[in-house]
């Protein structure tokens, strides 16, 4: 014991001024409060007027908060107070190391005392004041390295994985009374950076201000936070406070099992606000219920920040929104139960689906249970490259069901789709069921061709679409569309959209052409003049990005047609060129005096697979040079001109180029 006292004295020598020999040492042993405990406490009175305190360990909430605590000050009595002046103290704080600082204090009695500690090197200032039954505590740590604070927190069991850089100012004020405690913590950061190991949370150059107040009476937290600059990533949200300064205010009550959110108010710049109330179960931090109200005066930045990140990996990835919107959202047990939104001048664009709508206004209501009518109007839009005119629709959405409340007419390409009935059930599930009936009011084919970047030809397309079936991501449309083109008809049947929301949306159909007037057709494409009628069947037509990638096609002169069948030199040249043959043969000899020729029949077939077209004509031609050819044009009368093809397989791209070149060229000139 004596040995220990000697050691203590030696230790004291480091911080205490040399003192005369007279001293009184009191070994207090252990002292404990409700949440703290000090062991090996020794109080030494050094004459003439100095006090020294030695504490081996101080524990707070069962953890070592400080070791080797030593304090020394000169003392004097002022009135009824014992004052400690020009004091010094040192202690080893886990995670912080050895701290040294100054100390002042005054002690009247157990209900009236105060103390002030300062550690300049750590920017630490702490004051403690006991007045009557209340103890007031103020701790200020300014300019502290965030990494050091993390180490300190870790030493107290508050593990926070990751790396910090930058400085933090902390101010804690607390009043600890016998019945209630109130505490306020203020945090300021200027350029704080943080990297959590998993990469799910991070901050860069964060300038933020936070203030949290705790009232033990009602068990209430009041939190205010401002993001003033820098960036935060909290998967999947990326918040750029430099671009969109954000403030948040939260009032929450802490009960045994729950957090009750009495109010959460979020403001993101001038773009919009969010207000919410809710109940969170403490077990697993499960959201039990929430009511949210949003008011977005500028949807674009809010949508990009708050909505878009949740759409990554879905067909709606890349969805953008502009305009203004306000509405509410209800959640129960983590699931959406109701949603209302009022849109005004909204522009939406889902690039991946090729859908866009502009000038969208109206109300959207959806509820998990109970019917909720909605109505929307828009000024314009597009599906893929097809522009849509202004329209309005009213519908009812409930759970996974959606139903039109009135027929919906969507104008497009000088015609319209008139949807008389549309009811979808189990939306979003593989068992999606559709009840659909629509009429395509004749649309302008020239406009459609221009929209799809096809060769332009006139006519109209219309028809009845009496049903829709959805199976294995194939949307099959019942009924047929009929186009009136080139004085004949084209009938589209077995229309199917394959994986319309997938990586490779495709369209499939069968097409049947009857009595196409070749004169009108060839006139349209400046191909060379042909008269007569043409029938054709294109089975298994498959379009990928609106370009044909597979079909079995066969075109031939309409059987039983008695119209005049003539073909011009230029058309013969072009057909010859498409078949891979020479051009200009007719313009050189005596045949050049004939402008056109009579023909018996003409036709071509092409089976397109994997970019190659397997060609054939109307019938086999006699062998020539050991090769068996096929008639593309079978002549009639004199001078008789036959066009015979020998090429059986040709690249589709080459074929298309040849047809385009034939249409584009001025054609051979007859001298």
């Amino acid at each position, binding site marked *: 014991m004596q040995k220990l006292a000697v050691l203590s004295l030696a230790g004291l020598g480091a911080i205490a001024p040399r003192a005369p020999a007279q001293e009184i040492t009191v070994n207090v042993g252990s002292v404990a409060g409700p949440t703290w405990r000090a062991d090996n406490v020794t109080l030494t009175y050094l004459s003439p007027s100095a006090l020294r305190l030695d504490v081996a360990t101080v524990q707070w909430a069962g953890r070592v908060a400080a070791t080797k605590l030593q304090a020394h000050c000169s003392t004097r009595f002022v009135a009824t107070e014992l004052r400690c002046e020009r004091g010094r103290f040192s202690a080893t704080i886990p995670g912080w190391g050895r701290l040294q600082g100054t100390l002042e204090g005054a002690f009247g009695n157990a209900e009236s005392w105060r103390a002030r500690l300062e550690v300049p090197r750590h920017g630490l200032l702490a004051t403690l004041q006991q007045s009557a039954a209340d103890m007031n505590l103020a701790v200020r740590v300014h300019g502290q390295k965030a990494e050091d604070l993390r180490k300190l927190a870790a030493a107290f069991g508050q593990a926070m994985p990751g790396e910090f850089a930058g400085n933090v100012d902390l101010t804690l004020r607390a009043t600890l009374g016998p019945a209630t405690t109130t505490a306020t913590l203020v945090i300021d950061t200027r350029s704080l950076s943080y990297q959590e*190991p998993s*990469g799910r949370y991070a*901050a860069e150059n964060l300038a933020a201000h936070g203030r949290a107040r705790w009232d033990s009476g009602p068990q209430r937290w009041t939190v205010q936070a401002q993001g003033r600059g820098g960036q935060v990533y909290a998967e999947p949200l990326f918040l750029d406070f430099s671009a969109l300064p954000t403030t948040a205010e939260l009032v929450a009550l802490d009960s045994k099992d729950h957090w009750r959110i009495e109010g959460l108010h979020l403001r993101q710049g001038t773009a919009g606000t969010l207000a919410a109330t809710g109940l969170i179960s403490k077990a697993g931090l499960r959201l039990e219920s929430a009511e949210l109200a949003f008011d977005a005066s500028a949807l674009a930045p809010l949508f990009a920040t708050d909505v878009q990140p949740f759409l*990554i990996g879905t067909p709606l990835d890349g969805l953008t929104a502009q305009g203004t919107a306000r509405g509410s959202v209800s959640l129960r047990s983590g699931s959406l139960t109701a949603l209302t939104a009022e849109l005004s001048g909204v522009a939406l664009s889902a690039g991946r689906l090729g859908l866009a709508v502009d000038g969208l206004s109206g109300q959207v209501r959806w509820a998990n249970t109970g019917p909720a009518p909605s109505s929307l109007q828009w000024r314009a839009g597009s599906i893929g490259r097809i522009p849509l005119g202004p329209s309005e629709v009213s519908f009812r959405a409930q759970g996974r069901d959606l139903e039109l409340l009135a027929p919906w007419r969507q104008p497009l390409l000088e015609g319209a789709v008139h949807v008389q009935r549309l009811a979808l059930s189990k939306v979003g599930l593989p068992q999606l069921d559709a009840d659909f009936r629509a009429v395509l009011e004749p649309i302008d084919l020239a406009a459609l061709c221009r929209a799809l970047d096809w060769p332009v030809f006139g006519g109209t397309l219309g028809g009845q679409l009496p049903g829709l079936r959805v199976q294995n991501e194939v949307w099959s449309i019942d009924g047929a569309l009929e186009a009136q083109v080139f004085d004949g008809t084209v009938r589209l049947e077995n229309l199917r959209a394959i994986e319309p929301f997938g*990586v490779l949306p495709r369209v499939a159909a069968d097409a049947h052409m009857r009595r196409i007037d070749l004169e009108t057709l060839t006139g349209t494409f400046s191909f060379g003049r042909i008269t007569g009628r043409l029938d054709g069947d294109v089975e298994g037509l498959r379009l990928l990005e609106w370009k044909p990638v597979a079909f079995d096609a066969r075109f031939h002169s309409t059987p039983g047609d008695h119209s005049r069948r003539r073909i011009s030199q230029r058309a013969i040249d072009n057909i010859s060129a498409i078949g891979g043959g020479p051009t200009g043969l007719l313009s050189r000899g005596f045949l050049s005096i004939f402008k056109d020729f009579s023909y018996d029949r003409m036709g071509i077939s092409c089976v397109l697979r994997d970019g190659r077209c397997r060609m054939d004509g109307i019938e086999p031609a006699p062998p020539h040079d050991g090769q068996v050819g096929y008639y593309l044009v079978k002549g009639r009368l004199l001078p008789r001109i036959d066009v015979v093809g020998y090429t059986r397989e040709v690249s589709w791209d080459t074929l298309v180029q040849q047809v385009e070149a034939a249409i584009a060229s001025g054609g051979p000139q007859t001298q």
Partner: protein
Amino acid sequence: MKRAISVPTLLALFLCAACVTINVYFPAAAAEKAADRIIDDVWDKDTPRPGGTVVPPQSSLPSRFLVAALDFVISPAHAAQPDIDISSPEVQRVKASLEARFSSLKPYFDSGAVGLTGDGLVAVRDPNAVPLAQRNAVKALVADENRDRLALYQQIANANGQPQWAGQIQSVFAQRWVAKAQPGWWYQDSSGWKQK
């Protein structure tokens, strides 16, 4: 007592022996070559190689004699050795999409932010290697890449008339992506992430 086998019994036995089961095996070697061809095109745009079908290796049957004998009894159905066809427009379209994305994805493969998973897809391996503002863009790139890759495996299977092969084609690709990965890129195997 010895009894001669009756003619009908013999005939029945013969007919049973003539029952034929046709097993269509997944042509792993051909799939590997097809995968290599696609991967070369996607990852190495400077040296494009001609596309098309792949000639599979000859099969080595256990007993040529037995086959000859069987052929004598039952005329064989001349099923061609399965090729892996990668020329369908859908396969070419997805391949083009993968090629177009590679230049965006390559820096993240190089930095180790993105790695190759054991199931023929890609994943964000180290988000901390990506600046905050780009993290969601990388997630979107990875999600798009995976959608395309899954479509590629399915479309190759479809193009070969065997939609059920998609899983096996995916496994073959999983190995080939890793085998052809550039030094320094990260890949995942059963024990976790590794650097090539």
